[in-house]
């Protein structure tokens, strides 16, 4: 074996530098099999992925600044010594002005990761220590991200707990909120309320799924009192607007709540029914008009509350309350009986009937309880339903109270039901009250009169449509 010994002069130049190629053919054991007691570090070649050697040999080792890991060449490919996470997919939406949740599907992620949001190469926000379970991480979009302009592209990547960045990223475009009505937040849940008729526009980026709703129609008008005859009778209370909901424990007419709905991207007409009028003219003999219907596009409709019956003798359209979401109260009972209007299944209840011994009137049906029958006193309106669909407790859908009689019964008008039901008029002293605005309450009925005179009750209250959902 040839000697590999070299003199110092063969190794080092005069200025102390090692002579180029001087170490060629040095026995590898001279450098490989020696202990290293240094507490410093061994410098490695460092560069980006693009700067890797063009023709690497097996065992070549370097630090890759692109992936943040030491890597070696195994004869076929470069192998990183760190786990390099990848972001396989991102589900969920980034929506202007609200903090939605995104779910990241990850490979090679550590137990926690930092999620990095960038736009145009600049970091907008980093959410640290996001837990990863079974390759999935859920992160709430921070305000610096959802505050960006609709249409902006947000690039999402992760860093493992050791700082190793993901080898890729995913892009999500900032979407707009649905428009129409008034949007408020209940925690992370969107509450979209329509107090008047408008278009609901769901952006093309998504459908609204699992949407809870309350669709409440306008309340019926209270029964009036015509000049054509029997003037002592009080008018029936108006029925509450039809009450349909998926939220809470009960829908109208003591029925179970309905299933949530899906509203597809596109434009949908949200109709809010107006309150039914109350009349005192000789033509209609004073039956209150039914309230207006409310609807959510072509998905569902709630019917307006039935008008209260007139307190007149032999009205052309009968002494019964009008049928509707909830039925209107009956009137003109002395000597004859009349039924309250019929409520619609799943929307409301029946109006109160008359008593043949009195000239009092029945109460309008409420969303959850029927209008009280007339007796020696006029019947109160049925009660509405208590709901927290907006995040606050509100009772809606009360029936109107019957108007007091001027003879053969109490002159005191009956109270409206809880949830916007109007009070019935006293026969001589106190006016009736209208159904509550956006509560779908029935109007109070007119009081009986001591003389031939046209009297009106009060109009019903308008309805409302409320949607509750997350994106």
């Amino acid at each position: 074996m040839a000697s590999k010994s070299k003199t110092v002069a063969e190794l080092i130049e005069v200025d102390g530098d090692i002579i180029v190629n001087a170490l060629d053919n040095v026995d590898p054991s001279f450098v490989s099999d020696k202990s290293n007691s240094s507490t410093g570090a061994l410098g490695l070649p460092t560069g980006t992925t693009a700067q890797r050697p063009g023709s690497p040999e097996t065992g070549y080792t370097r630090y890759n600044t692109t992936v943040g890991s030491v890597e070696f060449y195994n004869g076929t490919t470069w192998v990183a010594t760190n786990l390099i996470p990848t972001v396989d997919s991102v589900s969920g939406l980034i929506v202007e002005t609200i903090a939605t949740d995104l779910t990241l599907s990850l490979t090679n992620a550590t137990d926690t990761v930092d999620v990095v949001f960038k736009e145009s190469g600049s970091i907008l926000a980093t959410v640290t220590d996001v837990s990863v379970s079974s390759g999935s991480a859920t992160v709430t979009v921070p305000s610096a991200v959802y505050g960006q302009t609709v249409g902006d592209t947000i690039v999402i990547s992760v860093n493992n707990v050791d700082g190793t960045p993901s080898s890729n990223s995913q892009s999500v475009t900032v979407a707009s909120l649905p428009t129409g009505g008034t949007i408020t937040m209940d925690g992370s849940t969107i509450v979209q309320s329509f107090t008047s008729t408008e278009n609901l526009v769901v952006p093309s980026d998504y459908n609204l799924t699992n949407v809870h709703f309350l669709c409440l129609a306008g309340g019926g008008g209270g029964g009036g009192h015509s000049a054509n005859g029997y003037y002592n009778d009080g008018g029936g209370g108006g029925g509450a607007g039809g009450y349909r909901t998926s939220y809470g424990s009960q829908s109208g007419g003591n029925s179970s709540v309905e299933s949530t709905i899906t509203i597809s991207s596109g434009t949908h007409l949200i109709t809010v029914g107006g309150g039914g009028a109350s009349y005192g003219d000789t033509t209609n003999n004073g039956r209150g008009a039914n309230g207006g219907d409310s609807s959510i596009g072509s998905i569902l409709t709630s019917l307006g509350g039935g008008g209260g019956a007139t307190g007149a003798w032999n009205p052309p359209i009968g002494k019964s309350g009008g049928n509707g979401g909830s039925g209107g109260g009956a009137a003109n009972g002395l000597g004859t009986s009349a039924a309250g209007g019929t409520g619609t299944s799943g929307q409301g209840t029946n109006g109160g009937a008359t008593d043949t011994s009195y000239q009092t009137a029945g109460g309008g049906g409420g969303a959850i309880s029927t209008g009280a029958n007339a007796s020696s006193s006029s019947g109160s309106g049925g009660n509405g339903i208590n709901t927290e669909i907006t995040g606050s407790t509100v009772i809606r859908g009360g029936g109107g109270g019957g108007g007091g009689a001027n003879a053969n019964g109490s002159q005191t008008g009956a109270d409206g039901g809880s949830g916007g039901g109007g009070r019935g008029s006293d026969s001589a002293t106190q006016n009736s009250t209208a159904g509550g605005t956006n509560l779908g309450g029935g109007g109070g009925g007119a009081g009986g009169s001591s003389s031939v005179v046209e009297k009106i009750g009060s109009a019903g209250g308008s309805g409302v449509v409320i949607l509750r959902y997350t994106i």
Partner: protein
Amino acid sequence: MAHFAKVLDGKVINVIVAEPEVIQNLVDTSPGEYIQTSYNTRGGVHYDPETGEPSADQTKALRGNYAGKGMVYDRILDAFYYAQPYDSWTLNQSTWVWEAPVEHPGDGNYLWDEENQQWVADDSQPTE
């Protein structure tokens, strides 16, 4: 908040609340048209919603009556009113109610006899 009647073939089929500026932009594919109506107008008179008394400014009175489902919309007269109860009755275009050709007798229960064009007393019920 304004109110509009949905009118189809001269008949009110629904009454809604809506802002006037959005009514033209509603995406409503069902037949019919929206005609504005006044919640506080009855018998050609506008009533103050606070007091229930006739308003000082009667220019607010709109189209005769607050529309109700089932009422007529008369495009020529531009008014809402109930359907004509009898052929002989005429529409009072000030109060927007139908009037019999013979004046109502007053106190008491009467039914209209269209064939004989008269009010007929009905004593089967109390009259006070």
